[in-house]
């Protein structure tokens, strides 16, 4: 290792410009920071802040339209003592740059699915990196690759060599990606949002793996992320970027204990945290004002006293099974997967029920079943309001269409959920047209009121979705879902595609709307902190089953189910006082029902049911065993 005085990487006054048809855009402007050997530096910023461009510049992987205008990237190669290379002056695809790339500086990406070639085996792709930089025989390469795969936690490395990326889960793919980046033992690893696309439990595992490997290989890590929780748990130094400039930089302690720059302070205030005061609001960087007009204001009938104990939505014993065909050559090797297994819960009028679980746990299947986009194998869904009870699964034809006015949906992806060929007016007024509500004048007025409601300018109604940002589009989506004046909204991961500051904005908007319009929410998310902020009660799902359901404080204070506990432990908190306990991060067994400890085990023999623990706290466990355990 080098002495601490010469940093491994020194970026000085870096300027990167993009040649665009409208002129030059400086994506990175006078950025300076340094990475000492063996430490972790986090580069934090929202999307568009230029943090990824910095990493591309260091790797010599800038797109052809981008040029380094000014500044230097000094890389002190600790293999060749005393030599310092200015990467900014190297030819991007020249031999010297290619030797550094992958050899001394490696890169891992956000999206483990697309960053590996689906046509080549994992082993082939990892070995390639090794053979490019080390003079090894085929046999040695094979062994080294296998060792590396074992090191990153593949249970059967010899087999993993021959698997293709699409045969692996997201977490394993990211592990394969990490082993590819580390096989040449680089002195610097650039991790570009390495865990953003992963579930929290997997994220915790990958973060732990990166920490372990860093200690073992003594490399430095430049971590690019927007997640302050990850930063608080991983970084030694932090650099905050905004619009291509460094706003603030310093050690983790300095920045978290005593943020100076208003932008960083604002960013910190915008992130939902676990220990928030009751009633405390997030402070988005740009607050939006929501106004209700006369068309949307609750009418007398809405204000009529509602029996708040009578559930507005009741889901009973819902089950849905998917058949998966697997195996080579279309041979009929079928297996059944329970996307929903005996799911029951109630949503009370005016409340927000949060539904948490990792990807593939069945939460989207559940929302689609309630919306009648999927037909369950068994179970019942009942909707009830002042107009009486409705058996949702029994509806068809006109009655189903009428029912849609009561229950609407907000989608996850603000980009693909808006038709790019329709104007905002057409998009927001489409539900009114479909249901034949009002005349032109009414629709025009309603739409402009909806726009004001979500804090958008009604003058922009003739624009197309592409001229809006992600957060604005999501607000358009919300406006569309409110056009029919529904009583209940199902929000499926409405903020997971948004930046933290925008996320706070949309969450606050949803909160305000709930109050103003007397709405009921079923709020689906994988992010516990977000659910904690918005929900009154929280339901936890795993492998198609509802494992725990409790009021918000109760769930966080006293989680009972092992999966809930694992989930809570795995969330990185954006503060220094509550670090992730990496030691207790399990392997992925916490999400396998048959591996849960005794009263919770789900297997052929045991079929635990939801048990009432009092105060609205339910947990899925074997009744006899649990009472024994709680009593002892």
């Amino acid at each position: 290792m080098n002495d601490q005085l010469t940093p491994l990487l020194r970026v000085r006054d870096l300027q990167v410009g993009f040649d665009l048809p409208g002129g030059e855009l400086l994506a990175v402007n006078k950025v300076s920071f340094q990475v000492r050997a063996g430490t972790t530096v986090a580069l934090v910023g929202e999307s568009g802040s230029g943090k990824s461009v910095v990493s591309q510049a260091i790797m010599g992987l800038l797109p052809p339209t981008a040029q380094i205008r000014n500044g230097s990237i000094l890389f002190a190669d600790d293999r060749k003592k005393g030599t310092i290379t200015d990467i900014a002056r190297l030819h991007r695809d020249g031999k010297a740059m290619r030797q550094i790339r992958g050899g001394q500086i490696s890169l891992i990406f956000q999206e483990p699915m697309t960053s590996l070639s689906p046509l080549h085996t994992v082993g082939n792709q990892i070995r390639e990196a090794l053979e490019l930089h080390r003079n090894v025989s085929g046999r040695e390469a094979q062994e080294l690759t296998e060792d590396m795969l074992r090191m990153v936690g593949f249970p059967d490395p010899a087999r993993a060599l021959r698997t293709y990326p699409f045969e692996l889960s997201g977490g394993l793919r990211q592990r394969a990606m990490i082993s590819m980046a580390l096989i040449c033992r680089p002195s610097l690893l650039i991790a570009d949002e390495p865990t953003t696309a992963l579930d929290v439990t997997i994220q915790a595992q990958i973060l732990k793996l990166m920490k372990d490997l860093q200690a073992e290989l003594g490399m430095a890590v430049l971590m690019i992320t927007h997640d302050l929780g990850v930063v608080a748990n991983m970084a030694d130094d932090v650099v905050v970027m905004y619009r291509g400039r460094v706003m603030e930089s310093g050690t983790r302690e300095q920045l978290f204990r005593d943020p100076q720059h208003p932008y960083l302070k604002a960013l910190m205030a915008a992130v939902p945290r676990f220990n928030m005061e009751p009633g405390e609001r997030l402070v988005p960087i740009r607050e939006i004002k929501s106004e209700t007009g006369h068309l949307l204001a609750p009418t007398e009938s809405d204000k009529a006293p509602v029996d708040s104990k009578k559930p507005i939505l009741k889901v009973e014993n819902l089950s849905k099974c998917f058949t998966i065909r697997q195996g080579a050559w279309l041979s009929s090797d079928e297996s059944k997967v329970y996307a929903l297994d005996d799911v029951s819960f109630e949503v009370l009028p005016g409340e927000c029920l949060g539904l948490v679980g990792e990807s593939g746990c069945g939460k989207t299947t559940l929302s689609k079943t309630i919306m009648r986009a999927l037909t369950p194998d068994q179970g019942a869904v009942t909707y009830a309001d002042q107009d009486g009870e409705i058996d949702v699964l029994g509806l068809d034809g006109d009655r189903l269409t009428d029912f849609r006015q009561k229950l609407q949906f907000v989608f996850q992806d603000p980009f693909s959920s808006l038709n790019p060929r329709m104007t905002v007016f057409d998009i927001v007024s489409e539900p009114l047209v479909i249901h034949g509500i009002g005349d032109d004048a009414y629709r025009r007025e309603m739409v402009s009121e909806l726009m004001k409601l979500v804090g958008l300018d009604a003058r922009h109604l003739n624009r197309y979705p592409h001229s809006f940002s992600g957060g604005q589009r999501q607000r358009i989506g919300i406006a569309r879902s409110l056009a029919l004046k529904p009583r209940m909204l199902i929000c499926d991961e409405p903020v997971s595609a948004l930046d933290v500051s925008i996320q706070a904005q949309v969450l606050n908007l949803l909160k305000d709307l709930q109050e103003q319009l007397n709405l009921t929410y079923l709020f689906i998310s994988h992010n516990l902190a977000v659910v904690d902020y918005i929900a009154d009660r929280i339901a936890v799902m795993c492998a198609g089953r509802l494992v725990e359901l409790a009021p918000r404080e109760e769930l966080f204070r006293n989680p009972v189910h092992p999966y809930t506990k694992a989930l809570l432990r795995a969330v990185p908190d954006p503060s220094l006082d509550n670090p992730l306990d990496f030691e207790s991060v399990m392997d992925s067994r916490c999400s396998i029902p048959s591996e849960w400890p005794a009263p919770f085990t789900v297997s052929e023999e045991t079929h635990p049911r939801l048990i009432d623990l009092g105060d609205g706290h339910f947990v899925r466990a074997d009744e006899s065993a649990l009472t024994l355990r709680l009593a002892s």
Partner: protein
Amino acid sequence: MLTYLARRILIMVPTLIAISIITFIIIQLPPGDYLTTMINEMQSQGENVDQSKIDALRAQYGLDRPMYVQYFHWATGLLQGDYGYSFEYQLPVADVVGDRVFLTFVLNFATIIFIWVVAFPIGIYSATNQYSLGDYGLTFLGFIGLATPNFLLALILLYLANIWFGTSIGGMMDPKYLDQPWSGEKVMSVLEHLWVPVVVIGTSGTAAMIRRLRANLLDELQKQYVVTARAKGLHPFKALMKYPLRMSLNPFIADIGNMLPQVISGSAVVAMVLSLPTTGPMLIGALQSQDMYLAGSFLMFLALLTVIGMFISDLLLAVLDPRIRLGGGTNR
């Protein structure tokens, strides 16, 4: 794997039977048969036709029997390797086609090689240097190739070949080698004549191929795994060859199924203009004169090639793309 193969081969049988029925019906659809065509022709030339002789011929060829009997006669013959009898050429179909198939195969195979050899480098260049001067220039040339009528290009090239190299007009070889046994000189003569039809038939195919390869490759070049490969330190050209190019090959492999019958029957119009002794013009002639066994057997042969070609490209796709081999609907 083996069950899949067996199933695929078994599915081919009903497919081919269905095709044979449809082919036969379509050939029989126009009123009359080969003899009526012949009588009309003779009468228009002022010759008298003896009705009794015609009836005799009709009985001899079985044309007086109902259609389904004729079909079974033909179909059972096919199974035994008897392709029927060509009325027009007064020869068994196998003998009529035999000669031509070989030359057609040589011509069209050369064309395919030509298309691939020309289109691949240009397509790759166009994709990797998108919107460069070279890309625009080659794109322009490609569109000219697509837009020029083949027969026009054929005539021009024939003319040029004749005045520059003294190549004889038309045909696949110099007239003096016709009906001669194969010799070194005859092969040279074929090669000398070959390039004109190859270029003519190849231009539009090349242009289309360049456009498709460019589009496919441009899609793939955007993908993250290309960056991954370069981030490993792989030379950009090697990375291009190993990852995105390989990914963009699938449509071309899938195309082999269409190519196989084309190798035998393609380019009829150009062949007529250049008076090439290939199968294309023969098939058109047979359909015009309702020479039903020649047309029918030849169409069946093409159908067989299509089915086999599809089978081969499916197999190749599975061999080359593990997602197809191992995926089998695992996505949820």
